[in-house]
């Protein structure tokens, strides 16, 4: 029934699909297989710092799967706390981005047509300028002799600086600040395509505006809410730079732990196992995002 690919496609089409396919297979799919493999190996003092899974002994191929790395992760409360810390951080910041981003996207979608592209450009512009530099800007604002503390001291509201930098509070601010544009963009995409006549019909039928919002606008923009939330939630779970720069010793996140295991402790197998477990935690949100993505593409087509 299903013929092989090359019989169905002309030669030119074969190349068009083949080149990106081969590239992604080599530089995206294969690397994950390697991470999975290394997560089952044993750390060793060598270059590269792990032992091979396969070995020949007594004329037979031996494959040694070491699940010790995984047992270590589930045994050590440090890793568990790091995972939980990351998930909590991701939940709170996603909610924060949604609460700030939804009204913003709504206002942009209701603005006159010519202004909409300019407003979206203004929202996206900060995310194109260096991410690192925007986090760095917050270091200057939140530090003990920074802008907010100086202002509050000058106003006489406080008598000594409040510790804000190197706390979880600073990490929340930094993450919401950096990821807000990624929430607004998909929300705007669905809200701007909303059929205005439905809202009119609701108000003609006597629905109050809050009621219309909950019963009509919000359900119709569900796709944008899911896409935006996933675009924030998934990368935040693996976030490393923001907790490193704004957070303190108690802001434990899995991205930071993975980085330390890999670069400081040079324990590649444990780092790989941490990545695999992280991916396992993110499987549901990632498939949710893909389902939304492919559905919205089919709708447009």
């Amino acid at each position, binding site marked *: 029934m299903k013929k092989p690919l090359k019989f169905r496609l002309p030669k030119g089409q074969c190349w068009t699909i083949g080149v*990106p396919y081969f590239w992604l297979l080599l530089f995206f799919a294969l690397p994950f297989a390697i991470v999975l493999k290394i997560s089952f190996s044993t750390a060793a003092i060598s270059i590269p710092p792990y032992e091979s899974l396969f070995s020949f002994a007594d004329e037979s191929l031996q494959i040694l799967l070491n699940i010790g790395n995984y047992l270590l992760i589930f045994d050590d409360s440090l890793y568990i706390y790091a995972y939980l810390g990351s998930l909590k951080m991701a939940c709170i910041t996603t909610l924060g981005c949604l609460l700030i981003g939804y009204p913003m996207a709504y206002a942009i979608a209701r603005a006159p047509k010519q202004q909409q592209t300019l407003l979206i450009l203004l929202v996206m512009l900060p995310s194109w300028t260096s991410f690192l530099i925007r986090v760095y800007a917050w270091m200057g604002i939140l530090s003990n002799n920074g802008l907010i503390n100086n202002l509050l001291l000058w106003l006489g509201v406080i008598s000594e600086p409040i510790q804000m930098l190197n706390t979880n509070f600073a990490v929340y601010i930094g993450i919401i600040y950096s990821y807000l544009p990624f929430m607004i963009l998909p929300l705007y995409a669905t809200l701007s395509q909303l059929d205005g006549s439905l809202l009119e019909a609701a108000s003609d039928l006597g629905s109050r505006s809050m009621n219309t919002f909950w019963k009509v606008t919000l359900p119709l923009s569900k796709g944008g809410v899911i896409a935006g939330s996933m675009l924030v939630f998934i*990368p935040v779970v693996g976030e490393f730079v923001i907790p490193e720069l704004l957070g303190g010793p108690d802001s434990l996140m899995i991205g930071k732990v993975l980085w330390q295991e890999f670069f400081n402790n040079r324990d590649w197998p444990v780092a790989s196992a941490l990545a695999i477990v992280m991916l396992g935690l993110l499987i549901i949100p990632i498939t949710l995002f893909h389902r939304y993505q492919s559905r919205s593409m089919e709708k447009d087509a």
Partner: protein
Amino acid sequence: MSSLKDKLSFSTIMLWAGMFFLYVPMFILIFYSFNESKLVTVWGGFSAKWYGELFRDQQILDAVWTSLRVAFFASSMAVILGTMAAFVMTRFSRSWGKTTLSSMITAPLVMPEVITGLSLLLLFVHMADTFGWPAERGMLTVWLAHSTFCAAYVAVVVSARLRELDQSIEEAAQDLGATPLKTFFFITVPMISPSLMAGWLLSFSLSLDDLVIASFTSGPGATTLPMVVFSSVRMGVSPKINALATLIILTVSLIAFISWYFARRSDKKSLPPAM
């Protein structure tokens, strides 16, 4: 009706408050880059001396040059790969190959960077181990990594444009005897060129900005600008970084507004004259 107005004004207030939140930190950075004082938060008078210091810092200049080269080649490769993938996603009939390709190409959009970086590094280590290539990590490996994740963004931008396009023009060209390749280069590419440009610029800024993937995939010979900034920021705030930040913000804003201008102009052109 008045309650509808209230809600509108609430979202409008949120929009301006949100814009304030997004822009104030950047304006503060620009302001303090002209600070005479060595202490970042104490105002010591107007001075442009940190810009001078910045241009005398050889390490930063080298890193800028490396980053620009990597970003140029990565975004060019990403446009080629992303456009091919976008073409497959919008023009090919549903098949097993198309479905896996479109899910692979959108995956880097959401994948946590640490995972992508770690897995690519392990791939390069493995390849070096097995075939002796790439012998060492450096610009080439960063280029490969950046091309891969930027291609995802190009594919999204270009496929949105391809989907809007009137396919009858392509069909007409083919009916008149143009080969598919000729149709693509003489008909499709000119029509999608604004989105190719937008995809290229987006990739360029993504590649310039990337710290995590570059840290994993680069070697001692290729330090990109974000890596230098990160290590110096970790030591504490320095006024030189304020000057650098100002230059980056201004350059990116300029590029963004130029590309917005071109996109708007081509949008106007593509509208039917009656409108």
